[in-house]
């Protein structure tokens, strides 16, 4: 760009960070949900950090087991 003002860069970074957050958050949440068991997810109190049921969920998804 032509002129260089530090404030402009800060605003640009803030807008872009917000944009990436909006764009990535739904997918992040789905990834997190895939690491919890069904009861935690349906209970409506799902934590924002990963849980301990990752392998179990993906094993079931790949093998197509009907019981959940």
């Amino acid at each position, binding site marked *: *760009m*032509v002129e260089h003002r530090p404030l402009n860069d800060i605003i640009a970074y803030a*807008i*872009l960070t917000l944009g*990436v957050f909006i*764009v*990535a958050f739904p997918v992040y949440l*789905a990834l997190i949900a895939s690491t919890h068991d069904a009861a935690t997810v349906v209970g409506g109190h799902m934590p*924002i950090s990963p849980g301990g049921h990752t392998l179990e969920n993906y094993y079931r998804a790949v093998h197509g087991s009907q019981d959940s």
Partner: protein
Amino acid sequence: MEKSVVFNNKLLPYLLLVPQLIITFVFFYWPASQAVWQSFLREDAFGLNSEFIGLENYQSLFADPGYYKSMLTTVIFSSLVAALSLSIALLFATQADKNLKAAGAYKTLMIWPYAVAPAVAGVLWLFMFHPSLGTLARPLRWMNFDWNPLLNGDHAMILVVMAAVWKQISYNFLFFLAGLQSIPKSVLEAGAIDGAGPMRRFWTITFPLLSPTTFFLLVVNVVYVFFDTFGIIDAVTGGGPAGATTTMVYKVFADGRLGGDLGGSAAQSVVLMVIVIALTAIQFKYVERKVQY
């Protein structure tokens, strides 16, 4: 001295066109003509018999208040989605086009949700805003906001619009960014030397020079909201509550596939096809005049 090359073979050009013409015919004109023909028929629920009833399907269609309601829903939905996704994507694209150190990383992070299918996008957003299991619905409830997209039609519409906009942002972002990068820097520098600030440079130089991209995206986005948002609506609300998010393309599916009224559904898809063709023609005739190539 004549230097131009002349191909004397009269047959070859048509032969070369044949593969493309066959594909267009088989996958576009054939199904479309089937839909037009079907719209003049009445079929029984099992698809065993059909009789020709002329324009009766269209008559009952335009006598149905539910159809006008779905038209209004479509107008609200499509204008909201097109306007929001275009303006948000333009905002992000102009920021990412600046000389920032981490611009490359931001561009990549903005583009990848383009790979998410519409139905998956719908499920993701339902997952966040489902009244009982949504992660973001709980804070809303906590703020004493009675959020319930399963019962409240306006909330359902907001949720579907958000999911549809989210899905489309990265596509529009990609094209806006390419459009911005093709604007010659010398023009912007000339504007800056003449004393134009960033905002004035954007509205008097960047925005007009970006108009071919904007026009292209407008056409693509209108087609997107009319047809491709079906997966999102089906996954998030299924057209409900009480038809509040039943757009025209969803009604085609609901009446034909779920309701078994194939003739009426075909009549709807013919009307929808005419509307989209008319919209695209209007855009090319009137909006394209304002485009500066």
